[in-house]
């Protein structure tokens, strides 16, 4: 009796094993930790349950730079994953690695899976498309910079919480009032370069670099020392000197200082909303980024941050079919809506945005659609559809170092930005030479 049941169990195991072997495994390296990781695992799990031929195996590989480094090492050793999540600043690095990646458009075409790049928000697809219109990577998680205010602090300072500053001029006036009401930390920011250089440029339709912000070729040069850029950074330096701008660091450290109620205003990722919601005592609102109203065409539209999925080269055709199936699954509006509402990332296709709107989600969560509205405020121009600079991990670091020198009062905005352009261009030239162009 016992033996018999054992035999049945064994047979079942053997069957399951055979079943598992018939499945083609698709390895997916990503950088979504914590709650985001759970959402991602749920996506993969649902895909695996929806069909029998393929199994997507998500593997958390640490932060964005860490997983990119790991994938580079794995590629050199000949065992890269099938799918790799790469943050937006790594886009140029991936693009230049022609032999290491397969363009998403090609993967979808070869597998005859439906794929329409036009379904995506123009600011999203533009970021990951080459000049010929081929989509190179699959947009996955996108966010943008938003401006948040603490409504209680506004009330305390005698400001109308329903009228947050819309221009940088209003912003300065509000900052003065908050300061004199005894607010210790008036304003802080997360992601200084992404916010105050990259998105600032797009929002004011200013060029970040020549050749359409680098999208037109690797022989691009930074142009972030224009009078407008200098004016903005000098303004921030002035605020820092007067104690109205508290610098928090190069990544998302500003989020926590706003969430705890310490700072009254912050510029942070759209994804930070999840953190702010966790503090029930915090009465906050999400708003468009402030702009300079004397700049023609401003506000334009903001640009994305976040990551996209790259398909690595050197795999079997059968495996690429699985990748294409998985991407087709991810493209469904329902799946996108679940990811958008579950994580706080923006809906990246127009259809999923519509679907979410119709579901009444935005009525229940006022302001949750502000990031999409800001991203699509106007049709993107050559200056505002994104950027693509080689070795921008280093380039952004250089910009941030120079900004820190201004905020610490050690140098003036003009010389800091001139220096950032000079050092940044050296990095671009080195990348150009290394890519063999």
């Amino acid at each position, binding site marked *: 009796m016992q033996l018999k049941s054992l035999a049945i169990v064994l047979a079942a195991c053997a069957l399951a094993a055979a079943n598992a072997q018939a499945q083609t495994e698709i390895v997916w390296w990503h950088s979504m930790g914590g709650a985001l990781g759970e959402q991602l695992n749920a996506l993969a799990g649902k895909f695996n349950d929806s069909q029998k031929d393929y199994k997507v195996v998500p593997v958390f590989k640490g932060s964005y730079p860490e997983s990119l480094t790991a994938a580079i090492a794995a590629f*050199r050793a000949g065992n890269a994953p099938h799918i790799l999540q790469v943050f937006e600043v790594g886009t140029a690095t991936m693009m230049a690695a022609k032999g290491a990646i397969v363009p998403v458009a090609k993967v979808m075409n070869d597998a005859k899976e439906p794929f329409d790049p036009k379904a995506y928000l123009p600011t999203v697809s533009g970021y990951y498309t080459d000049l010929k219109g081929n989509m190179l990577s699959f947009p996955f998680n996108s966010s943008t910079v938003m401006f948040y205010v603490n409504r209680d602090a506004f009330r305390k300072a005698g400001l109308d919480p329903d009228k947050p500053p819309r221009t940088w001029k209003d912003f300065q006036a509000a900052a003065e009032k908050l300061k004199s009401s005894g607010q210790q930390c008036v304003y802080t920011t997360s992601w200084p370069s992404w916010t105050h250089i990259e998105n600032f440029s797009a929002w004011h339709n200013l060029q970040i670099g020549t050749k359409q912000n680098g999208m037109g070729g690797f022989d691009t040069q930074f142009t972030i020392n224009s009078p407008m850029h200098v004016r903005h950074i000098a303004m921030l330096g002035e605020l820092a000197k007067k104690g109205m701008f508290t610098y928090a660091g*190069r990544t998302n450290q500003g989020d926590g200082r706003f969430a705890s109620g310490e700072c009254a205003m912050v510029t942070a990722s759209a994804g930070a909303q999840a953190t702010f919601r966790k503090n029930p005592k915090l009465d906050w609102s999400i708003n468009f980024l402030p702009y300079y109203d004397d700049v023609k065409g401003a506000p334009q539209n903001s640009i994305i941050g976040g990551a996209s999925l790259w398909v690595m080269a050197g795999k079997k055709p059968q495996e690429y079919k699985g990748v294409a199936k998985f991407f087709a699954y991810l493209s469904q509006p329902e799946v996108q809506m679940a990811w958008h509402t579950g994580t706080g990332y923006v809906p990246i296709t127009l259809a999923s945005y519509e679907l979410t709107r119709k579901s009444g989600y935005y009525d229940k969560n006022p302001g949750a659609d502000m990031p999409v509205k800001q991203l699509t405020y106007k049709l993107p121009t050559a200056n505002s559809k994104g950027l693509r600079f080689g070795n921008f991990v280093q380039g952004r670091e250089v910009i941030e170092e120079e900004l820190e020198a201004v905020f*610490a009062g050690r140098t003036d905005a003009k010389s800091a930005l001139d220096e950032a352009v000079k050092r940044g261009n050296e990095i671009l030239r*080195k990348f150009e030479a290394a890519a063999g162009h």
Partner: protein
Amino acid sequence: MEKRVVFRSAWLPYALLAPQIAVTLVFFFWPAAQAIWFSFQLQDAFGLNTQFVGLRNFEALFADPHYLASFRTTAVFSFLVAFFGIAISLALAAMADRVVRGALAYRTLLIWPYAVAPAVAGVLWAFIFAPSIGIVSYVLRRHGIDWNWILRGDQAMLLIVIASVWKQISYNFLFFLAGLQSIPRSLVEAAAIDGAGPARRFWTIVFPLLSPTTFFLLVVNIVYAFFDTFGVIDATTQGGPAQDTQVLVYKVYYDGVKAADLGGSSAQSVILMCIVIVLTALQFRFVERRVQY
């Protein structure tokens, strides 16, 4: 006279040495040779495109004022870490040497920090000094001191020096304590009989006799500050603000691992390798000859 053991067999000594030599070759010489080879190359991140560029990586480094500034930062940092690490542990050892009761507990507690990983030490101190939530920052702010090492370079430097020194004190302490205990009591007692006070006894007798230990620790501490403080820096300032705590070894890591610039990073490690060779030669020449264990 030294006792010498002579192997009769021709191959046995080599066979016995082989594992160690293999480990050294694979884990030290092979990567070092690769670093030298890469330092003459320009490569894209994925290694798809490689060009031989001769000394261009080195030229670019020495033309970069920020790389030269990194040398200065490293020098300042190493000096501070070595000086305070040695001074504080010498003071502690001199005192521990005189403790009669509970000496074991006291010493164990002093040696404890050595068991803490550098990254953990960094996080620990970063918490204590965190600009908005740190307990020390809170006290400093109440005394009107604007504490924000995320923006102020001097404060960031102070933070990593404190964390690195704290971590290294135990090691130095052990050596000093051993050194102190090997000093003959009779010398100190004779001086005491001659009427020399404790301070004078320390400076004229104990300290000179400790000098081989001190010199050895100086070299070890400088090497430590150069290389082993990586964890502390990565867990706290990450080289910032601006580049005020960007020491050489951190820049190697940053350029190579995060920025995927293998050529530039390898050139920097080759330069670092030269510095270590010089330091090691110094140690062998001046220290090994004089230290008596």
